[in-house]
């Protein structure tokens, strides 16, 4: 049975959603024009005023915001409410440059937690559940967002945060945690640890997992589902827009429903900035239509994906986004070819290797080199040198056909790649360009 947190809006007819979006957008543009001089200047430069925005159809007239704008406007430039009315901040990890600091009023926190509550219920969560939140708490949005959503659902919330894997396992077992929330790489690691301790999928009380904050493949999903004996759901979000819960997966596990009453999604061509028709692959752009303190309009996420409005078996009407191929920040250009770490992960898992891997890119004699490092596992090991080399060769061929370029495969000792408790570090780019 499909469960909903706010069924009326989650299953509303598209026309109704558009009506809500239009009303909120008109109001939001006025709010930003009046309160965010940085964005007002952008609008003036483009010759747009709030009078030009009458409905969602006019969205394309508005200027974009990019990560660069966020950096330039740091720390208060995009603030839409006096600090007196703000109740919290969150911040990005700052791995791609300066940190982004996002502000929230109580209203913003509420709508964010509603979004997370929708995600938890879509994963089958109810007030009978025990939600184990192993996302990091603190500046990172993962812990706080899911925590708030879990409260709204009425589940018993374990705010364990990240780290100390054996303690995580003890709490899951002793308190019969039913829903695990963390990054997919940490879920895989927990699964690995459970297995080491002799737990089969039926011995673990978990029934579902909500995993996000990094790109992961279908193969990794299958692997996590098998080891932990759960159904694994994807969740999407970014600090700029609130945090996790911008979009989430339902029982169909076929794309993530975007919470369209709060976030309007567009797909654009990242080079021409032109809006692309439904079903096209391109960069995802979001407009947060009712966030007050940090009102992002046409924010370029750098995530590459597709949207679909095809009817979903879960009954929700909100548009679905495909799993992003990766953030365009994560995309590597190797010998002129676009490579996403998620593609490499798919090949590894198809060939029976573990999801723990590292990609090392370097430049030797003016040529880019790609070294895919993967750990040897008991399943893949044999006393026969030829057989191991044959598997290695198969992997090189698989990578070649997926990526179109040749990669080296290095086999590493088990546990030699650091396990992450938050976002996994997959790529080491040593090139000095």
């Amino acid at each position, binding site marked *: 049975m499909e469960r909903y947190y706010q069924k009326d809006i989650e299953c509303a007819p598209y026309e109704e959603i558009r009506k809500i979006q239009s009303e909120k957008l008109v109001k939001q543009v006025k709010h930003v024009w009046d309160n965010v001089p940085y964005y007002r200047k952008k609008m003036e430069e483009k010759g747009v005023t709030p009078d030009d925005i009458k409905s969602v159809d006019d969205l394309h007239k508005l200027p974009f915001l990019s990560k660069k704008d966020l950096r330039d406007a740091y720390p208060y430039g995009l603030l839409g409410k006096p600090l007196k009315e703000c109740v919290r901040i969150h911040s990005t990890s700052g791995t791609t440059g300066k940190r982004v600091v996002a502000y929230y009023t109580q209203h913003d926190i509420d709508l964010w937690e509603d979004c997370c509550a929708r995600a938890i219920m879509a994963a089958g969560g109810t007030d009978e559940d025990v939600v184990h939140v192993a996302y990091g708490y603190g500046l990172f949005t993962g812990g706080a967002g899911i925590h708030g959503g879990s409260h709204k659902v009425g589940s018993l919330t374990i705010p364990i945060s990240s780290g100390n894997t054996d303690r995580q396992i003890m709490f899951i077992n002793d308190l019969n945690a039913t829903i695990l929330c963390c990054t997919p790489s940490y879920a895989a690691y927990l699964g690995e640890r459970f297995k080491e301790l002799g737990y089969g999928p039926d011995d673990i009380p978990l029934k579902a997992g909500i995993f996000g904050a990094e790109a992961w493949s279908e193969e990794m999903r299958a692997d996590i589902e098998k080891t932990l004996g759960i159904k694994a759901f994807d969740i999407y979000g970014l600090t700029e827009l609130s945090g996790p819960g911008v979009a989430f997966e339902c029982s169909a596990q076929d794309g993530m429903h975007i919470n369209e009453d709060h976030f309007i999604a567009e797909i654009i061509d990242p080079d021409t900035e032109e809006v692309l028709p439904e079903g096209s692959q391109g960069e995802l752009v979001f407009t947060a239509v009712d966030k007050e303190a940090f009102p992002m309009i046409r924010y370029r996420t750098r995530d590459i994906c597709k949207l679909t409005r095809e009817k979903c078996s879960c009954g929700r009407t909100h548009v679905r986004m495909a799993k992003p191929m990766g953030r365009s920040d994560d995309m590597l250009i190797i010998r002129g070819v676009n490579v996403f770490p998620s593609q490499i992960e798919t090949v590894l898992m198809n060939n029976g290797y573990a999801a723990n891997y590292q990609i090392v890119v370097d430049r030797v004699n003016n040529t880019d080199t790609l070294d895919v490092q993967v750990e040897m596992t008991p399943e893949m*090991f044999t*006393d026969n040198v030829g057989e*191991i080399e044959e598997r290695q060769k198969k992997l090189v061929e698989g990578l070649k056909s997926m990526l179109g370029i040749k990669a080296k495969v290095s086999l590493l*000792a088990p546990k030699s790649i650091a396990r992450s408790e938050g976002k996994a570090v997959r790529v080491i780019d040593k090139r000095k360009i």
Partner: protein
Amino acid sequence: MSVMQISVFLENKPGTLKKMTSVLAANKIDMRATSLAETKDFGIARLVVDDALSAVNTLKENNFVASLTPVLAIEIPDEMGGLDKLLTVFDEAKVNIEYMYAFSGGSSKDHAYMIFRVSDTKGAEAKLAGKSLKMLTQEDLAQI
């Protein structure tokens, strides 16, 4: 009668072999014979020890990938032509050898021991039975 050899995956970088021997030493595992197969990218250390089962568990606990492989351990007289005589028996019995290595020592000063990995261990055991070869058992290995 085959004995268990431990095969250990070793990453190709300085210090990995030493890491393995340290683990074995710290756990008081006595090696009888060792051999190292290397490729461009990785190596496999092959070990015959006094207590194979405890050695393989110890290695796994210390994050090594290790497995057990059945091999034949055969005593030969430590004299000229000793191996040749033995291989004549293998040859007649049509036993295919994948790799082999030797060790000597222990209490017996006039004997050496050969370790053979053959394509079909069970078949080879049957073919070599009754050929008056001294094949070592796991118990022999613990006592040498």
